C-alpha cells in the first residue's frame, strides 16, 4: 500500500514540476511578441485602417439576459467605437427584466418585420426592432435559449462578413475593435478569428469607454483573478497563438469570420463553453480542409470586464468554465493526439486535457497526499513535504513570476505599490486561492454530467461611469 502511495505521489510531483516548466516554456515563446507589441504606438498603426473604405464592416453582437442595468451603456460605448462601418445587434434572450424596454425607450426603437436569413436554427424570434435614431442599432427579442442560441440569432440577423461577439457587461476601448480587426485586415482574410486580451476593470476608473485611471481593487479575490488573467493571457494564450493552436478566444470579446462560423454550424447550444467549443470546431474545419487560415490573439488589452467579488459567484463561474472545457474536449476527443489535426491535436488538445482540465484532479490528489502524509501516515512525511514545496512552486511562485513578467513587458499598473501588492497576493495563492480553485474545478468536471445550459448570472455593479 505504501509503495502505491509513493508511486502516486512521485507521479504527482513530476506532474506539478512538468506543469510549472511548461508555463515557463510557453512564456519564453511569447515574451518577444508581448514586448514588441507593447512598444508599438497603436494610434499610428491603426489609423490607416480607420480611413480606408475597404476595411471590412463588422456586426457587433451583444447577447443579453437580464442586463437592464448595463445594456444601454454598453450599446452607447459600442456606438462610440472608432470604426468605419458597423452595426450593433442586441439579442435579448428572453430576459425577465426590462432589458428590451430600456433599449426601446433609450434608442427610440420601432418594430420592423426584418427579412433575415436563417443560417442557423434558433429559438423563436419574438420581434425585431430598429432604432429610429441610429438605423444600424437593432434589437432581437427572442425566446430564451441560452447564450449560444442568442449569438446564433445575432449571426442570422447580421449583415456584415465579420461579427464581434461581446458580453453585455464588457466595455470595449474606443480603438478595441480596430485593433482586433487589424490582423484580419492585414492578412487579407487569412486570419478568421481574433481574440483580444480581456482585463479586469474592478478598481480602475472607466469613463466613456476609456480607462481614465488604472488601479487595483481592494478585494484579494479580485486581485488574485487579475494575477490569474496575467498567467492565462500573457503566458498561455499568446504562446499558443504564436503556434496557431490557440483553442480559446474569450467569450467576453472576439471577432469571427461569419461565413466560416456558419460553415462550422454556429455556436453549440449544448455546452456552457460555447466560445471555446466554436474555436475548436473552427480549428477542426481548417485542419480537415488543410486550410492555411488561422486564429490569432491580440495581446494588447482591448476589453474590460467586471470580475466577481463574491466567492459564491466566482465558484459558479469556475464550475461553468471547467464544465465547458470538459464538454469541448469530450466533443472533440477525436482530435486528441491525432496527427491528422497537426499541432492542435498533438499539442494543444493534450495541453488543455492534462494541464488545464486534469491539473485540478492531480492537484486535489496532491492535497490529499500532503494531509494524508502529515496526519494519517499514508506516505512518508518527507514525501508529503516535497509535495507541499512543489505545490508552492506550482501555485505561488509561478503566479508571482507572471506578475513580474507583466511588469517586464506590459507594465500596465502604474505604481510600485501595485506591483508589490500583486506580487504579495500572488505569493499567497497556494495557501487559499488555489485550493478553492482546485475544488471548484473538480466540481466543474462532475457538473459536466448534468446537462443544462444556462446563462452565467452575476450581480453587476457596473464598471463604466
Amino acid at each position: 500500500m505504501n509503495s502505491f502511495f509513493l508511486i502516486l505521489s512521485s507521479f504527482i510531483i513530476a506532474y506539478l514540476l512538468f506543469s510549472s516548466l511548461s508555463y515557463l516554456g510557453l512564456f519564453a515563446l511569447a515574451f518577444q511578441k508581448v514586448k514588441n507589441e507593447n512598444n508599438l504606438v497603436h494610434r499610428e498603426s491603426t489609423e490607416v485602417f480607420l480611413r480606408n473604405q475597404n476595411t471590412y464592416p463588422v456586426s457587433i453582437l451583444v447577447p443579453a439576459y437580464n442586463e437592464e442595468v448595463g445594456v444601454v451603456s454598453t450599446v452607447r460605448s459600442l456606438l462610440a467605437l472608432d470604426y468605419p462601418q458597423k452595426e450593433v445587434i442586441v439579442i435579448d434572450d428572453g430576459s425577465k427584466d426590462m432589458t428590451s424596454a430600456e433599449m426601446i425607450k433609450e434608442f427610440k426603437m420601432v418594430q420592423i418585420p426584418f427579412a433575415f436569413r436563417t443560417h442557423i436554427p434558433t429559438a423563436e424570434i419574438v420581434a425585431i426592432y430598429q432604432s429610429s435614431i441610429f438605423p444600424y442599432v437593432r434589437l432581437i427579442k427572442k425566446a430564451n435559449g441560452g447564450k449560444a442560441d442568442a449569438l446564433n440569432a445575432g449571426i442570422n440577423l447580421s449583415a456584415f462578413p465579420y461579427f464581434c461577439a461581446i458580453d453585455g457587461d464588457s466595455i470595449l476601448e474606443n480603438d478595441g475593435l480596430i485593433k482586433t480587426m487589424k490582423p484580419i485586415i492585414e492578412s487579407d482574410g487569412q486570419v478568421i478569428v481574433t481574440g483580444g486580451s480581456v482585463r479586469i476593470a474592478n478598481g480602475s476608473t472607466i469613463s466613456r469607454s476609456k480607462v481614465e485611471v488604472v488601479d487595483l481593487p481592494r478585494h484579494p479575490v479580485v486581485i488574485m483573478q487579475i494575477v490569474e488573467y496575467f498567467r492565462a493571457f500573457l503566458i498561455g494564450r499568446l504562446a499558443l497563438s504564436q503556434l496557431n493552436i490557440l483553442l480559446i478566444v474569450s467569450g467576453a470579446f472576439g471577432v469571427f469570420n461569419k461565413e466560416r462560423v456558419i460553415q462550422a454550424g454556429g455556436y453549440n447550444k449544448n455546452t456552457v463553453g460555447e466560445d471555446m467549443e466554436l474555436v475548436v470546431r473552427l480549428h477542426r474545419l481548417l485542419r480537415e480542409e488543410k486550410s492555411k487560415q488561422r486564429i490569432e490573439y491580440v495581446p494588447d488589452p482591448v476589453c474590460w470586464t467586471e470580475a466577481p467579488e463574491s466567492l459564491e459567484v466566482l465558484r459558479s463561474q469556475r464550475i461553468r468554465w471547467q464544465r465547458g472545457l470538459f464538454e469541448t474536449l469530450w466533443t472533440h476527443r477525436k482530435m486528441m493526439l491525432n496527427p491528422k489535426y497537426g499541432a492542435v491535436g498533438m499539442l494543444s488538445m493534450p495541453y488543455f486535457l492534462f494541464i488545464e482540465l486534469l491539473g485540478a484532479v492531480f492537484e486535489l490528489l496532491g492535497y490529499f497526499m500532503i494531509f494524508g502524509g502529515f496526519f494519517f501516515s499514508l506516505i512518508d512525511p518527507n514525501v508529503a513535504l516535497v509535495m507541499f514545496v512543489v505545490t508552492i512552486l506550482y501555485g505561488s511562485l509561478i503566479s508571482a513570476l507572471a506578475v513580474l513578467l507583466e511588469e517586464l513587458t506590459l507594465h500596465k499598473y502604474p505604481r510600485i505599490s501595485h506591483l508589490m501588492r500583486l506580487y504579495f497576493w500572488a505569493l499567497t495563492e497556494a495557501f487559499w486561492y488555489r485550493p478553492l480553485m482546485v475544488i471548484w474545478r473538480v466540481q466543474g468536471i462532475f457538473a459536466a454530467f448534468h446537462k443544462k445550459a444556462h446563462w452565467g448570472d452575476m450581480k453587476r455593479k457596473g464598471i463604466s461611469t
Partner: protein
Amino acid sequence: MNIYFFWALIAFLFLSQVFLLGALSLRKLLMNHKEKTISQQYDRLTESFSSYMMDPTDDRFLKEIDTVSNQSVVLERLLNHYVAITKGSVTSSQVSQLSEKYLTERYKKQLKCNNWAIRMNTLYFIEDFHMKSLSPLLKKKLQKSFRLNLETQQLIRTLTSLNEPMTLSALARYADAPVRLYIDVFKRLELDIQLEELDAALKHGHNNKVLKHAAVSYIGMTGLMGFLPRIEEELLSDDEELRIQALKSIQHLQYISSPSLLIPFFHSTSWQERMFAARIAGKLQLSRFQEVLSELLGDSVWWVRYSSAEALTQFADGDILLSHLSATHPDRYARDMATQWEASLLGSEE
C-alpha cells in the same frame, strides 16, 4: 532528488524573483520619475510650442527646447500631438523643420534598432513629420527588404508620403502585394503625381491587375470624376473582379454617362454585379430601372434582394412601390424584404 533539491529549487526561484522584483521596482521608480519630468517639460513647453506653430516669428519655443533635458522625447510628443489634432487639415513646414533639426539623428539610430516596434514607430513618425532628409536611408532599407512584411509595408507608406512614387514599382516586385497597400500608396502621393500614376495604372493594368483594381477602387473612393469615362470603359472588361470594382466606383462617384451601360449587369451571372447594378440604380434614382429592381427583389441571393429593396427606397414613390410589392410580389422572400424596407421607411419618419 531529495527534499533539499526541492527546497533549493524553491529558494532559487524565490530569490531570483525577489531580485527581479527589486530590479523591476527600481526600474519602475526611474521610469515614473522620468515620465513625470517629461510630462512637466511637456506642459511647460506647450504654450510656447503652440505659439510658435501659429506664428514662427515667436521663437521663445526654440530657445526653450534647447534647454530641455529630454529634448527629443518632449519634442516628439509635442509634434505627434499637433499632427494628431491637425491631421488632414493643415500641413505645417514647422513640423518638418523641427523634426529634421532635432530628431534626424535619433531616428537614424532607431531605424537600425533591433526592436521591431521601435523601428515601426520611427517609420510612423517620419511619415507624420514629413522628414524628407531620411528618404535616401529609407530607400536603401527598402532595397534590402525581400519580404512584404508589416515593416516593409509601412516603409512603403512612409516613403510614398515623402513623395517618392518609386514605391509603386517597388511594390510591383512583390507578387503578394494587396490592393489595400496600393490604395495606401495612391492616397499618399501628391495630386499631380497621383493623377499620372492612376492614368498609367489604368493604361498598363494588364501588366499588374492588382494595381489596376486599386486604381479603379481609389478613383471611386476619392470621387475623381475626371476618370469616369475610363471607369466606364472597364465595365466592358473581361475580368469580373475589375468590372465589380468599376461598378463600385460608379456607385461612389454617383454618376454614369449612359444608364444603359448598367443593363447587362442586372442579369449577370455574378450576384455581386447584380447587387451593385441595383445599388447604382437606387443611388442615381434611375426610375427607368424600377421594374427590373422589382424583379431583382425576388433574386435567389439575399444581398441582391436586400440591395434592390434598399434601392427602391431611394425613389420619391419608393414607399408606395414597396407597399405594393410587399403585397403582390410573386416571390415570398421578395415580399418579406419589401415589407422590411417599407417598415424601415416608416420607422425613420417617426
